[in-house]
């Protein structure tokens, strides 16, 4: 069974330590929720897992099925089945969704593919893309548009899920995919995630809201504070946090809470 194992992960951004020893194991078929106040390090974990060069891993390891991927480039990790739905998807003018995605899907399905080698057949790709778009209620016109260029916030998030559907990752990290969506869109996206997160895929859902978790009930909920996972529970923990906020968590972890708030002041002061 495919497993993503994160051991004592420490990450710095521009020499500033953000993650201070994160441990987490996600297996195929599992849904994990990751919660925590703003600035606690959730996106940092997501970027570090995906292999962003600015997020320097200063200690610990990331393994996929026992293979240490800590030193691998983002694209090598993607080919091994890592996927990140971005909190803030990037706009790339002039690059058409279909062209980019055909390239990406080919590399994912044939991880040994070298630059310049053939792409998957156009027809097959188009057919599949159309089907996935229909499932997500997207107009096929989006395939011809430039990637996220002029897309509304909700459209960008849907585009992330479409890419996930096409790439069929083993492990998907959804970083606030539900924020900025109207309630209809949350439903479509939630159903989309639900459809994909079968036994073949493990999911880490980063969220501040309930809806996505209602459709995709997590087996595990983790709470991050000051760059560490301070608590792990089941779906009940997520419900509790939604009802009561982070006050009780802070009370239970006063040291981390103090660290978190001092860091926040620091980063505000530096603005």
């Amino acid at each position, binding site marked *: 069974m495919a497993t993503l194992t994160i051991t004592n992960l420490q990450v710095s951004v521009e020499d500033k330590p953000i993650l201070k020893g994160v441990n987490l194991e996600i297996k195929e078929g599992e849904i994990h929720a990751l919660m925590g106040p703003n600035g606690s390090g959730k996106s940092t974990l997501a970027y570090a897992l*995906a*292999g*962003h*060069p*600015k997020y320097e891993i200063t200690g610990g390891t990331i393994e996929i099925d026992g293979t240490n991927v800590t030193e691998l*480039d*983002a*694209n090598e*990790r*993607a*080919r091994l089945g*890592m*996927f*990140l739905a*971005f909190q803030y*998807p*990037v706009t*790339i*003018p*002039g*690059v058409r969704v279909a*062209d*980019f*995605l055909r*390239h*990406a*899907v080919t*590399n*994912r399905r044939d991880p040994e593919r070298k*630059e310049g080698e053939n792409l998957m057949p156009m027809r097959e790709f188009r057919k599949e893309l159309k089907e996935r778009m229909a499932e997500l209620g997207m107009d096929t016109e989006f395939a011809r548009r*430039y*990637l996220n260029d002029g897309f509304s916030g909700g459209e960008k998030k849907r585009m992330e899920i479409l*890419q996930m559907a096409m*790439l069929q990752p083993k492990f998907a990290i959804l970083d606030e995919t539900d924020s900025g969506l109207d309630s209809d869109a949350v439903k479509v996206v939630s159903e989309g995630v639900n459809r994909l997160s079968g036994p073949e895929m493990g999911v880490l859902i980063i969220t501040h809201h309930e809806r996505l978790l209602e459709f995709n009930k997590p087996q595990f909920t983790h709470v991050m504070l000051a760059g560490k996972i301070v608590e792990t529970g089941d779906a009940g923990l997520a419900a509790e946090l939604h009802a009561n906020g982070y006050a009780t968590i802070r009370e239970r972890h006063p040291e981390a809470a103090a660290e978190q708030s001092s860091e926040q002041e620091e980063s505000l002061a530096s603005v």
Partner: protein
Amino acid sequence: MSTETPSKTDPSLGDYQYGFHDSTDNYVFKSRKGLDEEIVRQISGIKNEPQWMLDFRLNALEIFFSRPSPQWGADVDQIDFQDIYYYMKASDKQEKSWDDVPEDIRKTYDRLGIPEAEKQYLAGVKAQYDSEVVYGSLQEDLEKQGVLFTDTDSALREYPEIFREYFGTIIPSADNKFAALNSAVWSGGSFIYVPPGVHIDFPLQAYFRINSENMGQFERTLIIVDEGASAHYVEGCTAPSWTEESLHSAVVEIVVKRGGRFRYTTIQNWANNVYNLVTKRAMAYGDSLMEWVDGNLGSKITMKYPAIYLMEPGARGETLSIAFANNGQHQDAGAKMVHCAPNTSSRVVSKSISKGGGRAGYRGLAKVVKGAHNCKSSVVCDALILDPESRSDTYPYIEVEEDDVTMEHEASVSKIAEEQLFYLMSRGLTEAEASAMIVTGFIEPLVKELPMEYAVEMNKLIELQMEGSVG
């Protein structure tokens, strides 16, 4: 006879695809190195020119010597003007069939794909090899309609009246130091005349090839598009990757008369040891449209700011410019739009890319003279910097002497595409694939304006520039 002697070419120039060269042993004529009155007289003498042209050249030579090199833009002080061959003639005449072109030279153009392109989609071709045009063709029906497409030397001999009426009037020798240099030693280039109302549907293509080391190529192009006529001219340029530098300094003069339309497309892909210092200017008359599409990929230094003077009401000018500066290159490119009449409009779209320590800049002028009411001018320039070692600059100059003018100027803050790169790589694209895709996307709005064949070529050249970019 040897071809493609690799010995003296510079290995540091990497995998520039057109870096091969032919032997110069069989050249019909080579001037000695250096520039003085004797050389100028020699060039004029070989060409059997009328006295007025010799006088014109000598006058320009004086201007050239009296002017300092420009101290703005790129660094051109490194050029040793006495270490250059000013005239090199590889073949003694211009041919109408590729079969008659000397084998070495023909092979070069074969490798560049010119004869093939000619068969498929060109209305006419000129191939210049060092100082002279070695091949020329024009579709028969165009010839019958009175279209003239010759090298500029032949035009001086065969069409002296129209030639003299325009030559040097759009860009006088005194315009700038390099225009003066070209005026003194010019050789080759294209002369085009399109009679009133004639439309040329397929592009006319000129291909400029520098073959010799330390060569100076100084083609001179003069194009007249008469009333209501239309045409599209395309030039391509390559050179071997010599260790010693070469100099390319062209002058291009264009007149588009009332209601005419003309587009001038350049795909400049000189080897990275060529100084490319070019003066290009068009005069656009009433209700005409002049367009420059300017792609600069190669050369060591390029300084080029194609200009359009909008002379009468209703004239429109458009410049689309792409510059790509890679390691060791400085592309100082741009556009000038001068509104000399009311109700004229201009648009400049410039995209520059710098990579591997290269430097690309936009330098532009939008000018509205007194009395030119109701003009519209828009300038948009975007820069893409692919790594922290590279650099991009924007120097927009605006001079407006009227109030009722619509001026738009947008310059997007140069951005390092790091986040875009990561996004694409996180989807499984390699760094090279991702950056090629970003760059192709960045210039897409301009490339899609090109005819298919040139769009394909442009994308291919960009991909070549991006290859091995993984750092």
